[in-house]
């Protein structure tokens, strides 16, 4: 009887492990970007020369320490990334302490901590109204991986100074005026 029960329990456990995780409903609710964020991330440049603006964008991103990961001149997209040094000394100390204590108790345990931080930049250009100007949308995101290679944190960066700095540098590099929406 107990053997059957154990086998049944094993079967249920194995099958439940196969089930995909449930997707939270809020993750699937797609809504239009809020106007404040759109304003922060976008500028209209007084030029029709989208290619020149893309070249200037590449140069500015490189100046800011980004490596260009992907570029599509035809579709007006540049994606770059920049590694940052991990600063999570508290997490490292906790992880080390847990490892030492658990080892002393003969139950080796490790706690992952933030290991790698990557800032990703995405710049998309588009033809503005009447084709007389070019729109630029700049987004920054932070991704942090832990020591087990899992994404520990991911978020949009929304510090206004970072966006202003980028757009100011781009306007200067492209020698064109930029306007907020």
């Amino acid at each position: 009887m107990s053997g059957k029960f154990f086998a049944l329990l094993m079967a249920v456990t194995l099958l439940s492990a196969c089930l995909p995780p449930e997707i939270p409903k809020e993750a699937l609710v797609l809504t239009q970007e809020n106007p404040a964020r759109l304003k922060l991330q976008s500028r209209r440049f007084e030029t029709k020369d989208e290619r020149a603006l893309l070249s200037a964008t590449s140069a500015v991103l490189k100046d800011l320490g980004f490596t260009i990961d992907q570029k599509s001149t035809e579709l007006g997209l540049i994606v770059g990334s920049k590694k940052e040094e991990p600063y999570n000394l508290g997490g490292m100390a906790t992880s080390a302490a847990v490892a030492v204590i658990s080892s002393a108790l003969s139950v080796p345990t490790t706690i992952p901590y933030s290991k790698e931080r990557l800032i990703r930049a995405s710049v998309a250009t588009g033809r503005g109204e009447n084709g007389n100007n070019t729109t630029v949308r700049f987004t920054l995101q932070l991704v942090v991986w832990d020591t087990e290679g899992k994404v520990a944190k991911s978020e949009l960066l929304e510090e206004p100074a970072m966006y202003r700095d980028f757009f100011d540098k781009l306007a200067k590099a492209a020698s064109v005026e930029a306007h907020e929406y």
Partner: protein
Amino acid sequence: MALQVLAAAGGCDYGLRDFSQPPESQKLASIRSRSFETTDREKILRAVIATLQDLGFIVDRADYDRLSVSGTKLDQYLLRWTVTVLPQGASHLTVRAQARYDVTPVLEPEPYQKFFAALSRAVALEARPSG
């Protein structure tokens, strides 16, 4: 009984092998794609980029030759959206979207309907069921 356990594990294996390409019903395929009366690939791909941005995605890949665009949405979760454009006859383009929550395919129709409604506005063309 041991066979039952192995069968359960075998079922899991089947699911994993088949995970990259889940079986799609006709209905699901139609939810994930729309046809547009245009042959302007650049216009459609740029509209896809603008639509994903307007819906809060960060566009991280765009390939004109492969006619594809991908974006991610990060908000304490990872939602990845991949869109491919396919020629359909001499006068239409089919836009096919696929969303994944982490590694799980999104099968619910609502996000796709929302995406195509926004894409239709961006491209200023009426989207029709493909096929």
